């Protein structure tokens, strides 16, 4: 099959679609509803926070079909190129009967007003497909975590969670993967996607060389990865995004590898994949993994994007800084590595040079004596932005602190290390006295501000209290377990 480089090719509910002459910043949601008449997918917020627009994207990963939920409202149409898009209309396509997911939702009274329901059905369908050819099924907690990006204002979620359990008890209806795999296998481009439209240009290079060449030529272009922020510029700020370089098709940026005791996560790796790999080495990231935005946002967004965006309330930077992570910066024919904290120069500003992009994030693997924790404070467990995000990483040798790296988000214009606190800790014994001095030092490290997430006083106060929590969990004598320090500890909660 010849794939035209100026048009977008994808599968829509199993059928091939070729799209031409659409604005590259048009959302998938708008395309579905207005061009295709597929009105099952709803707009609830247009910022990826409510999940009414949840759809499933399939793509080939090492020859297998990988499916993920995403928010259609902040997904630009050209990013579908070469992928399979599934909407709620797909589920009863075969014989017009309800899919087990849908039937279970009916049986459990999982819908009331019904507006969030198609999105919830798609999230459940994604889970269903993950388990449909296994003997097990997800427990209630896993289902709740998987629905973290789907708001329902009517039911209170209980019948939805019940439906997620019951859907496996109905006659099975597994996703027929092979036809999708076969069709997607046909979508092999011999040249990169390149769209020209009066609204915007869109380039999707496939190699680092292509990418850095484009970037050097167009240093002002918007670099697009997951689009979970850029999508909001269009939907909410009406900000024109006219020149786009999309990273999502650069295969080298999608790799994760371990090399010389360092985990290298390519800038194009989704947050879901990045956190999954990081958690293998740092199980202390498990709660952060669940609480970082929502499942669909983590599926779209990238760790590189989170870092490049540099928001002071991004949840990855504190723990990356505490672990001593670096960023690899790529230019046209150039490459350099920078400590993460050196990347940021001010509020949403960084030290990247014109033409540079982030190639990967490099995370040191655990060392002997290391005590690492990261904590997040927000009004809601699921999918909320931190008021305060903390990360602590002390290395202890014979009870003495040989290295102290502490960083906070939400406390300054960027995620920032706690210099005075760290200084007070280095070389000291890890005890109450040291803690007391560290608390005092930490209180002087930041001058946070008040906003809708928390007051400056709360931030200041809890920043120090989180150090206290960290001490209680890591002190040498009688350290407290997570279930004694965190209301969200999973060990006690599973029921």
């Amino acid at each position, binding site marked *: 099959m010849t794939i035209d480089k100026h048009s977008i090719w994808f599968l829509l509910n199993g059928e091939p679609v070729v799209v031409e002459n659409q604005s590259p910043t048009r959302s998938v949601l708008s395309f579905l509803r207005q061009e295709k008449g597929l*009105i099952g997918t*709803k707009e*609830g*917020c247009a*910022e990826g*926070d*409510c999940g009414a627009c949840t759809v499933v994207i399939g793509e080939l990963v090492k020859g297998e079909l990988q499916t993920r939920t995403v928010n259609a409202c902040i997904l630009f149409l050209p990013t579908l190129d070469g992928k399979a898009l599934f909407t*709620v*209309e797909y*589920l*009863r396509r075969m014989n017009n009967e*309800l899919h087990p997911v849908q039937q279970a*939702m*009916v*049986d459990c*009274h*999982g*819908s*009331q*007003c*019904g*507006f*969030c*329901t*198609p999105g919830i059905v798609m999230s459940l369908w994604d889970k269903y497909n993950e388990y449909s050819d296994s003997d097990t099924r997800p427990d209630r*907690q896993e289902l*709740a975590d998987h629905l*973290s990006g*789907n*708001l329902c*204002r*009517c039911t*209170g*979620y*209980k019948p*939805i969670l019940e439906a997620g359990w019951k859907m496996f008890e109905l006659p099975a209806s597994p996703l027929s993967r092979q036809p999708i795999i076969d069709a997607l296998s046909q979508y092999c481009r011999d040249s990169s996607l390149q769209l020209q439209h009066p609204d915007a240009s869109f380039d999707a290079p496939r190699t680092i060389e292509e990418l850095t060449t484009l970037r050097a030529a167009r240093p002002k272009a918007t670099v697009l990865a997951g689009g979970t922020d850029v999508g909001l510029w269009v939907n*909410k700020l*009406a900000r024109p995004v006219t020149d786009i370089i999309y990273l999502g098709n650069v295969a080298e940026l999608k790799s994760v590898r371990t090399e010389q005791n360092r985990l290298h996560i390519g800038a194009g790796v989704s947050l879901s994949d990045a956190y999954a790999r990081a958690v293998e080495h740092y199980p202390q990231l498990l709660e952060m993994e669940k609480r970082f935005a929502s499942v669909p946002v983590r599926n779209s967004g990238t760790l590189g994007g989170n870092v490049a965006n540099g928001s002071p309330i991004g949840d990855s930077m504190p723990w990356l800084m505490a672990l001593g992570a670096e960023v690899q910066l790529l230019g046209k024919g150039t490459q350099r590595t920078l400590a993460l904290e050196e990347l940021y120069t001010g509020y949403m500003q960084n030290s990247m040079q014109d033409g540079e992009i982030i190639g990967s994030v490099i995370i040191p693997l655990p060392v002997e004596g290391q005590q690492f924790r990261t904590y997040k404070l927000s*009004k*809601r*467990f*699921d999918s909320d*932005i931190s*008021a305060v995000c903390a990360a602590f990483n002390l290395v202890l040798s014979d009870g003495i602190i040989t290295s102290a790296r502490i960083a906070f988000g939400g406390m300054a214009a960027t995620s920032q290390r706690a210099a005075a606190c760290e200084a007070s800790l280095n070389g000291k014994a890890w005890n109450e006295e040291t803690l007391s001095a560290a608390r005092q030092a930490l209180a002087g490290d930041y001058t946070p501000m008040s*906003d*809708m*997430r*928390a007051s400056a006083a*709360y931030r200041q106060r*809890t920043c120090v*209290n*989180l150090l206290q*929590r960290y001490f*209680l969990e890591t002190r040498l004598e009688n350290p*407290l377990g997570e279930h*004694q320090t965190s*209301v*969200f500890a999973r060990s006690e*909660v599973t*029921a």
Partner: protein
Amino acid sequence: MKATPHESAHLHVAGEARYIDDIPEVAGTVHAALGLSDKAHARITSMDLSAVRQAPGVLCVLTADDIPGENNCGPIMHDDPILADGLVQYVGQPIFAVYAESYEQARVAARKADISYDELPAVMTPEEAHRQESYVVPPMRLTRGDARATIDKAAHRLGGQLSVGGQEHFYLEGQISYVLPTEDRGYHVHCSTQHPTEMQTILCHLLNLRSHQVQVEMRRMGGGFGGKESQSALFCCVAALGAHVLGRPVKLRLDRDDDMMISGKRHCFIYDYEVGYDDEGRISAARVELVSRAGFSADLSAPVATRAVCHFDNAYYLDEVDIQAFCGKTNTQSNTAFRGFGGPQGAIAIEYIIDNIARDLDRDPLDIRKVNFYGKQERNRTPYGQEVVDNVIHELVAELEASSDYAVRRQACREFNTNSPILKKGIALTPLKFGISFNVVHFNQAGALVHIYTDGSVLVNHGGTEMGQGLNTKVAQVVAAELGISVSHVRSSAADTSKVANTSATAASTGTDLNGKAAQNAARKIRTRLADFAARQHGGDADAVVFSDDTITANGVETAFPQLIMEAYMDRVQLWSDGFYATPDLHWDKDTMTGRPFYYFAYGASVSEVIVDTLTGEWKLLQTDLLHDAGNPINSHIDIGQIEGAFIQGMGWLTSEELCWNDQGRLTTHAPSTYKIPASNDCPALFNTRLFDNQNHEDTVMRSKAVGEPPLLLPFSVFFAIRDAVASLAAYRVNPTLQAPATPEAILNAIDSVSTDS
């Protein structure tokens, strides 16, 4: 009765349930967007809209000057401009409307206005409004006895303040209207509204029309919760104004941020209270001032305050009271109906007071609650003079106390706390009593139409609107039961002002009570005709004809329902009927605030157990047990859905949902990224819901009880469980100052309040 799924459930799950934005657009449809005020209170000194007009795709831009009729969408007082006319009164107030070929074009153009303002002093809080004695309606007062004197001579006294925040509705489907001009100056309006008749009326005033020129149709809303009772009017009017000027269909679908910036919310309240009580904690007199944030206009603030006054008693007999309510005029969104309509805001104050009494007396708050419960034969008249004749709170609470193992778990929490340095557990049991009916008597009426077609299929249309609460399902069940047929033969159709006229809002939990009765009345008339016909055909007494199992049995002769229908048609029997219902025996004197405003009361209670982090104020709900009185339920699954949904929604109101305005008066929590309604992990893993075995004392439809709003009071137990956990830090002898919403920050402040006090 066997539980029937929601009539649209199979459509919801398939994405085939049509909401207004899903209706195929008529060719030539125009899209509207609104230009909003940047200032909280200001005179507009100049308005340059030329850049808006010149933006791509724009067809026209309209302002207050272009309104042919009345520039008002206020439901009671006419103080609510559709488009600001020279004066803006809150950040987000619509000033102009832009109409363009596409949704995106309209939204982009709306940002291009150049407006200059002369700023005026703004009032941003109910406290400030109260200080200035600036109210949207006159203050209200309900007194019984001499509360002041009785408090003064009571054995114990306590007083204090409380602040309870507002709440954004966050219906998943935002506000939307689609108005199509029809022939002869007529309009067909699709509006996501709980009140089609009011939309019709206000639109007529806007365009100088008569009601028979406007047809408002409403199949379903993607959630309402009170937010589409009066608040849908502005958007309906803006769409209609464009349709009137352009002669083309106009759709106004709000972006979520605009929706939250423009529309009113649940009233936040501040309270100043004082009570006198005896050694047992029995309250002899209470004095309370309730001050709400009404926003810039009256909207429904007066009836919301009335309901707050009438629910300050909750489940408790208060012998002498002095209850005053003030609707503070603030330069913020005009607050409105929200599930409970002031009832929850009234009741939470007395619960807070009782919680305080318990700690002051070193008693279990549940003991103090029981001591104060309404009696059955005595101590059973509400402060507003209504006798409570259906009281089941004693047995309901006793049942829940036992089934939830409250006493044992309370002890276990205390033991846990002695061994847990950082995390503390808390538990609370709270009751509710909620009055059912509109306080305004004449709203308590409804109409319905039932058609039986010759194939035996039945269509029912009524004045209520479906917003997810299952009204259409229940009404269809009522009609099916009346005709003795399976509910699968009955279909409910869209609310439509051209079918049933002069409808009341689907509000105050009355949807099923009113429309179910009206539909039953219509079905009964047909049934009577059918019985007469069958008796004529087969002999016997018409009264003895039996309708059941899709069969009509007369004089021992069984006829299948569709067959009898065809025979009746051939015999020229009228197979359709109207029906009507007016709730009996209601009266209300708004000057003295006395009467019998409620047909009956619904009851319920809940137990919640939480764990709180004393370092951060984070918390988690560990277990909740709900027991609720829905009378004899028409559909127990739908009722349980309402109860659980209201519980989680009310929990959001009291915990994670915080509305913030900045120094400029701009709402900073105007999207789900900043405004946090409960999400999936907020639903407790242990969540037991049961219906209390009861029959309505009054002759309601199938002896059921309304279930929309009352359970919104159930999550009080979460709030007071958090307070209980915090109080553990001071051996349960100091009352923590906990404000709602109990965000982690508010909880940490409460922790400070007991640390400082002790």
